[in-house]
């Protein structure tokens, strides 16, 4: 039976603009998977501790990109995931979102795609887009 390795990592918390530098001690198994987070130091609030645990088990990020617009006064609609989704799903999500076309008008917060990749998180519009003014 192999012995788990203890590793000390340093990374910044990105929860707020303070960007505390966290020092984290983790225990990994022979495959490199995190078995346990032993300690988190350097955080000036409890969110840093929560962030470090999440970051080492399943890092979560908000994904932002654009989708094509039909009939709008802009070509592209900026979109975001309503909440953070697992970072490892971002590439797959991009492949799915790339083919979308939405029709103007669109309001900020409108759902562009429901339950993105079974995350139960919606893809939503970041901005209003009005119908194109038709020139006479």
């Amino acid at each position: 039976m192999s012995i788990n390795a203890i590793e000390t990592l340093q990374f910044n918390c990105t929860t707020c603009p303070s960007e505390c530098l966290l020092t984290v001690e983790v225990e990994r198994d022979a495959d490199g998977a995190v078995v346990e987070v032993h300690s988190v130091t350097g955080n000036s609030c409890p969110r840093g501790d929560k962030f470090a645990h999440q970051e080492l088990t399943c890092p979560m990020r908000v994904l932002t990109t654009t989708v094509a617009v039909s009939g709008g006064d802009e070509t592209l609609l900026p979109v975001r995931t309503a909440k953070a989704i697992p970072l490892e799903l971002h590439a797959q999500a991009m492949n799915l979102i790339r083919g979308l076309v939405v029709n103007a008008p669109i309001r900020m917060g409108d759902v562009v795609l429901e339950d993105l990749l079974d995350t139960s998180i919606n893809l939503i519009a970041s901005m209003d887009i009005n119908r194109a003014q038709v020139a006479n």
Partner: protein
Amino acid sequence: MAEFKSSAIDCGVVEAIQTQAFEVVVIGGGPAGMAAALAAHKAGARVAIVEREQHLGGILRQCIHPGFGLSHFKQELTGPEYAQRFIDQVHATDIALFLDSMVLGIDEASDAPDANDAEAHTVTLMSPAGMLQLTGRVVVLAMGCRERTRSEIKIPGSRPAGMFTAGLAQRYINIENLKPGSRAVILGSGDIGLIMARRCTLEGISVEGVYELMPYANGLRRNVKNCLDDFGIPLHLSTTVTRVIGHDRVEAVEVSQVDERLAPISGTERIVPCDTLLLSVGLIPENELSVAAGVELDPRTRGAVVDQSLQTGVPGIFACGNVLHVHDLADNVTTESERAGAAAAAYALVCGAVADADAAGPGCQLTVSPAGIAGYALPGRITAVALTKLNFRVCRPVNAARVRILAGGEELYAGKVCPFKPSVMESFPLPAKVIQRALDLGVSEIVLSVDPVEEA
């Protein structure tokens, strides 16, 4: 008189340029302009915004990434969401909007258009409906900044297609649905460069690496982590692009390591194949209109010299946001611009003469200069004894330094020891009693000095 011949030939009609009167005319409809206009409107002024694009929002429309609003809205928003919240607020008021309109000049007309109000400023603009003049007792400059280009950092080599400022590539990808290339090298680790490294990767453009002249990353830590580390994009510090290779299109760039004096080290050259070079090498406040209007600039910020109310040296012209000094966060632009808008409305409504008399009352005229590792100090002038917000940035990162206020060889104030980095715009409240003390000493200048301290 400002008049021009109608384009209708020989019709004998001479049209005067249309003029509309306001109290506050804001130039620029980005985060600075919208915040200033809303604050001025809230204070009771009749306000107009002039914006050269078709929509309000400015550069935020193309900054589709999250990271905005953490301090202003207490939640993380994307750039377009941050902009939309202000656009909605503007639309809920009777602030007059002149979109698709380019300002040609401030106070260029030889005659004041409104003879009853010699103190009014005139903003001449070209709108889709033709030339217009807006008058206002106050003009707020909120034009933002633009990117430094290759010519400003003098990269040797050929001049093929495929070189973009990072913000231009961002516009191509996020607004215009164009793909700038397929294999990119990014020079400069400023926030826009880091953001574009991630954006290119997500859009299937491979990013060979980010190269940074300085020995440290210039962007926010969150961006290094979320934009480079997440995607395994290498960051090469103390390394720069020393040659561009390619005839019609970029084929490769040569990169070299640099020494402590930032000079390329011979023998360290390496060829990196790519078809696209993105430059994220700094921002410059866009002040052509300001200079033409007689506004004095600070050579350090390349923005206007202002007093504590963000008024420039030209009475009735205020400045805020990135046209005044390049900010780190949009939230800070908003805070500053709300201050400028409120001060602008107060000036416009009380009438300039009275406001000036008030300011001149205590006889306070101090200049503020930076020293030590402080790259600049803003405001450059203080004309009132009151709690004053000072902004500065350091020239290089330090683990421990102290802010000191000096006057006539005396230390009037010393802050606590803390770390500083150039990517952060620092702010610091200067107590009224420190200003009063400087006046008591009879000095005309106070110095904001940031001095590294030895750690015990």
